[in-house]
């Protein structure tokens, strides 16, 4: 079915089609509409979900943890400071190996307080042990949320399905929806082997680990995250059979012979694709890699995709305050280390707190890459763009 939906409507609709057992619900801009729409589905009797309203995001995630441990498929939605308030519980969900699906509608973190989009919230949670999948538009937000359920449940890790706040969440666009029966079939029933409400064998979840055991459990988690990569690809293949839409660990756009490339995440990738097209018309071999799966990070695959480029700009929509570049840059630079011949690599932090990213901005980045490729001079490796400044670097 073809329809016009905002990103939030699309994800709420995906949740309705999944018909989860439990939703832990607490509002925060710009994700608020997701529990709002879902509450209507509950009120109309369109889903069987236990809709649990709580007093904070720490509690909404706690609800999901308890429900999932009990054997119930659980979903949640949040943004920004809400995700930050969940921080402790994100670790609990992941280390207790509870495959909760969380819609993260990306928004800047305070302060100064700001409601608009960047990736600071989910990037801050990148080491919590959650799988992270990012969407470029509302179609991907819908598709990714549905795929997150079988991905997470098969490797027993929680999944954060991320989309850009306002830019995606509040923009209506055309979207192709699956039939509800197809979604049901695709996600299947949630049948964990062991759960708290299984009367045959009582279960203890989250017991204290002394040093003699903790490390082994962390290795298990790390191995599960490694195995998730293959699982994400398998689920993507199955989803393509159902929908005709293809999903990998990242999207390569005009990369076949690209000499200059941008690596980035989310809605800005769509804007940058226009720049790639404009430059291709001028004969510039420009290309783009849109990271879809940030956790697990597709290190070897990305290195292969960038191996034949001359100069690459990694665009980070969050400031890691490492004084050494943003998180996407750190991962990408690490991924390229094992290549025999590496492209020049720069990092540009952009779009913080909703600072708009335009086609012309992407074109400026490519112009800088062209200069680097021509001269072999990288200049400053880690810079920002879009801010008012006495002297613009990009």
């Amino acid at each position, binding site marked *: 079915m073809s329809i016009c939906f905002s990103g939030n409507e699309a994800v709420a609709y995906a949740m309705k089609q999944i018909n989860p057992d439990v939703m832990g619900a607490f509002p925060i801009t710009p994700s608020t509409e997701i529990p709002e729409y879902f509450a209507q589905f509950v009120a109309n009797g369109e889903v069987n979900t236990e809709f649990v309203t709580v007093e904070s995001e720490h509690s909404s995630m706690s609800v999901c943890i308890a429900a999932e441990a009990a054997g119930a498929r659980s979903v949640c939605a949040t943004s920004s400071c809400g995700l930050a308030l969940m921080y402790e519980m994100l670790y609990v969900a992941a*280390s*207790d*190996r509870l495959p909760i699906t969380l819609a993260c509608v990306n928004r800047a973190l305070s302060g100064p307080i700001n409601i608009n989009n960047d990736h600071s919230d989910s990037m801050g949670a990148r080491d919590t042990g959650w799988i992270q999948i990012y969407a470029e538009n509302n179609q991907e937000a819908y598709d990714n949320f549905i795929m997150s359920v079988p991905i997470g449940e098969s490797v*027993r890790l929680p999944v954060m399905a991320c989309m850009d706040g306002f830019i995606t969440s509040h923009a209506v666009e055309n979207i192709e929806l699956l039939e509800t029966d197809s979604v049901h079939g695709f996600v299947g029933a949630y049948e964990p082997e*062991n759960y708290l409400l299984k009367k045959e*064998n*009582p*279960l*203890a*979840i*989250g*017991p204290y*680990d002394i040093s*003699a*055991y903790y*490390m*082994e*459990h962390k*290795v*298990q988690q790390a*191995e*599960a995250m490694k195995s998730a990569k293959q699982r994400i690809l398998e689920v993507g293949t199955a989803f393509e059979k159902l929908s005709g839409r293809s999903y990998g660990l990242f999207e390569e756009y005009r990369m076949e012979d690209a000499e200059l490339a941008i690596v980035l995440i989310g809605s800005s990738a769509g804007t940058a694709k226009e720049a790639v097209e404009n430059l291709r018309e001028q004969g510039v071999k420009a290309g783009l890699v849109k990271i879809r799966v940030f956790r697990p990070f597709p290190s070897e695959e990305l290195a292969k995709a960038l191996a034949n480029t001359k100069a690459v700009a990694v665009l980070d929509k969050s400031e890691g305050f490492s004084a050494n570049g943003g998180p996407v840059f750190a991962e990408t630079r690490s991924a390229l280390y094992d290549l025999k011949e590496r492209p020049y690599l720069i990092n540009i932090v952009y779009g913080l707190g909703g600072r708009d990213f335009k086609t012309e901005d992407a074109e400026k980045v490519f112009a800088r890459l062209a200069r680097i490729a021509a001269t072999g001079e990288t200049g400053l490796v880690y810079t920002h763009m879009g801010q008012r400044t006495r002297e613009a670097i990009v």
Partner: protein
Amino acid sequence: MIHAKDINERTPWEEMTPGGEIYEPGTARDFDTGTWRTDTPVFIAEACKHCMLCVPFCPDSAIPVKNGKRLEFDFMHCKGCGICVTVCPFAAIKMVSGGDAE
């Protein structure tokens, strides 16, 4: 199914349960925490009125009860905290130094 008693400090990560889940109840029974004791309670049976006040106060469920009578301490699990001595109204329990009553 992996049982808690089969996991110990030599078990490789591949053979442990995900997240440390435990698939059976009452597994504390399998662990000898009585070796942690530095002081030991001594039960003076002739002074005991079997009022049962000590039983719910024991944090380690180390005072067995049978047919309305409290029995000798379960020294596999008694950690020697001495709470039972404090709550006993009849001076029917005393503490002695060391991990053993002897």
